[in-house]
């Protein structure tokens, strides 16, 4: 078989000459010629009209890029991504080195200052126990962000993996995984929290994270399974199979990039919910416990005396809202960047 030689464009009759002897060849080749010429004109128009800068273009211009490289190029120019990214970087720094932002110990409280409003040196005021709210908000970032990010990452990973496998392979594995997911889905999260977490006596962030992952993955598994089934039925997956692609390539190159968008959206929304869930569990006394400092603990403690000292609730709640908003904006920007159609 001849290799892919350059098609000789100066001879449009090359393909049309020896057509169909039974047919009236004169008419035949004339129409063919017409079609070929039409094609030629279009190709020329394409080349001239669409790329005014191409004649000077060197080889570098056509260096191949991947979806992720393109997405990154796109993200760097997206103001929403930059704002949310900077916010998240800032929050992460706060979570890792809270000492950089305050010299006050959040556990060093003075009951005489209980529920006092903002004063100089203590911009957020004091809570019921007389602790500095600013210091508690700064130190609370660690627990809240750790719970939010780790629980989201965990349930997204477990959910996408199990849901994706169920959707991709179907049949028995689908039935088993879906039924197990249904069982976990059926457990009321607060009742489950009260039962599970009161049995476990160790109070640590990781216990709360594990609990949220165990009850949170079915939601993402369902989304992932649906997205994978939709992507699996597309012709481009069939085309890749026809080329001889294995399951791994089909899943990673074709199905995952096309199924990941709804998972990202749901996961970023879930992140906010998980931070709030940690607060709820702490409020019920089965989540984190003092002396751990978390926004959830502070919000639930402050909610009793909101009418007397609103600043106690306002600042940790604002920090929580900004964090959740930053992650949702980031998720949105990433989802858009991964969809070339929106570019």
């Amino acid at each position: 078989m001849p290799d892919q030689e350059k098609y000789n464009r100066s001879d449009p009759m090359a393909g049309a000459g020896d057509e169909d002897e039974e047919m009236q060849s004169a008419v035949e080749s004339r129409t063919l010629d017409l079609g070929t010429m039409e094609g030629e004109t279009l190709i020329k128009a394409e080349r001239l009209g669409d790329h005014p800068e191409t004649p000077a273009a060197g080889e570098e211009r056509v260096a191949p890029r991947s979806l992720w490289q393109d997405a990154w190029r796109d993200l760097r120019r997206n103001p929403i991504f930059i704002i949310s990214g900077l916010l998240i970087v800032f929050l992460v720094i706060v979570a890792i080195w809270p000492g950089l932002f305050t010299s006050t110990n959040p556990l060093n409280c003075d009951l005489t200052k209980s529920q006092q409003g903002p004063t100089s040196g203590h911009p957020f005021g004091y809570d019921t126990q007389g602790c500095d709210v600013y210091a508690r908000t700064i130190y609370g970032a660690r627990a809240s962000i750790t719970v939010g990010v780790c629980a989201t990452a965990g349930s997204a990973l477990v959910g996408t993996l199990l849901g994706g496998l169920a959707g991709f392979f179907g049949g028995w594995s689908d039935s088993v995984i879906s039924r197990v997911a249904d069982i976990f889905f059926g457990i009321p999260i607060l009742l489950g929290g009260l039962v599970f977490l009161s049995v476990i006596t160790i109070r640590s962030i990781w216990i709360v994270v594990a609990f949220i992952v165990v009850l949170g993955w079915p939601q993402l598994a369902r989304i992932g399974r649906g997205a994978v089934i939709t992507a699996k039925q597309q012709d481009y997956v069939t085309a890749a199979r026809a080329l001889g692609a294995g399951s791994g390539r089909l899943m990673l190159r074709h199905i995952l990039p096309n199924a990941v968008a709804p998972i990202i959206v749901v996961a970023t929304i879930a992140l906010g919910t998980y931070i709030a869930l940690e607060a709820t569990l702490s409020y019920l006394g089965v989540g984190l416990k003092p002396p751990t400092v978390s926004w959830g603990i502070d919000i639930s403690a402050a909610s009793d005396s909101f009418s007397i000292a609103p600043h106690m609730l306002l600042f940790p709640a604002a920090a929580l809202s900004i964090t959740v908003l930053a992650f949702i904006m980031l998720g949105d920007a990433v989802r858009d960047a991964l969809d070339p159609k929106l570019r």
Partner: protein
Amino acid sequence: MTDGATALSAPVPQGAAFTKPVPEGEPILQIRDLVKHFPLTQGVVVKKQIGAVKAVDGVSFDLRKGETLGIVGESGCGKSTLAKVLMNLEPATSGSVRYKGEEISRLSGAALKAVRRNIQMVFQDPYTSLNPRMTVGDIIGEPYEIHPEVAPKGERRKAVQDLLDVVGLNPEYINRYPHQFSGGQRQRIGIARGLALKPEVIICDEPVSALDVSVQAQVINLLEKLQNEFELSYIFIAHDLSIVRHISDRVGVMYLGKMVEIGSDLEIYDHATHPYTQALLSAVPVPDPAARQVRDRIVLTGDVPSPADPPSGCRFRTRCWKAQERCAIEEPLLAVPSWLDGLAAHESACHFAAEREIEQSAAEREIEQSAAERGAEGGTEAETERAAGQEDGSADGDDAR
């Protein structure tokens, strides 16, 4: 079946077993009694088979080296299922598919991968057959990643650009995404992907049905050009009879999972002997209003029977005006009817196969006369194309953008 057994037991060395050249005109793909049934099941936990949709039910034909075999039939007659089974995308229920004499319908693993290099496919819908999240370079380059032995790593980009050039697209487009192209351009990308592995057989599953008429002509011309350039053999599935006539050397007509008639394009289009083919042909739009009035159209009554419960005997008998008692009892086999001669003597699965000479002659003469007046005798589809080209001339510019 002995060949089939050896192909099963002995793993085929990658690409080596299928390199044997086949002379022009010799069968490259032999399909015998190919059957594909989709089971109908009932029950949630314990699935019980209660029947089967007989999508393809005993189809036999040869594809010869370098020819284009058109396969026509109405929606739901099993054309696309046939393509999927030939591509090994669906396992065949029974029957055999031989490529260069080797049984390929039950292969798996490395042997199947080696066959895939030689048989490729062009899909119907250019909007869903290209991954929206891959660049054109990645889409056309993927065959090389799957079969690294075809093009060494350093040469792949060059190979992809060459392919873009071959199908008439600007090689600079390598970093663009499918949605930045028009339907016709996308179909060219799909064709380039099919060509990447230098296959010998390309199965085109309605490759132009989703395109504009003017763009259809361009894609068809491209396919013909590539056939000459790369010595390809095509199986061309379509429901547009004019296009099939234009591109095909031989034509097979399918009805309800069966091949009812097969022959050269002249034998099928001008000397059809199966009533179903005759009915199909009579429904082809005639671009001449004068001729349209005198033509003798066969209007079939009733619907296509369910492929889950096809009629006994001849499957077409429920809608056939020639049907008699014999048709319900005895299934007509696809064979050359002994009572016919000349161009009418080609394979036709009908007990009463006969040309539609008497009814057709008047209408046909009219058509030929009016066609001859414009100096385009017998070239009805050429007419269609030219008319379409004129009509859509203004729309053509859109494709360039």
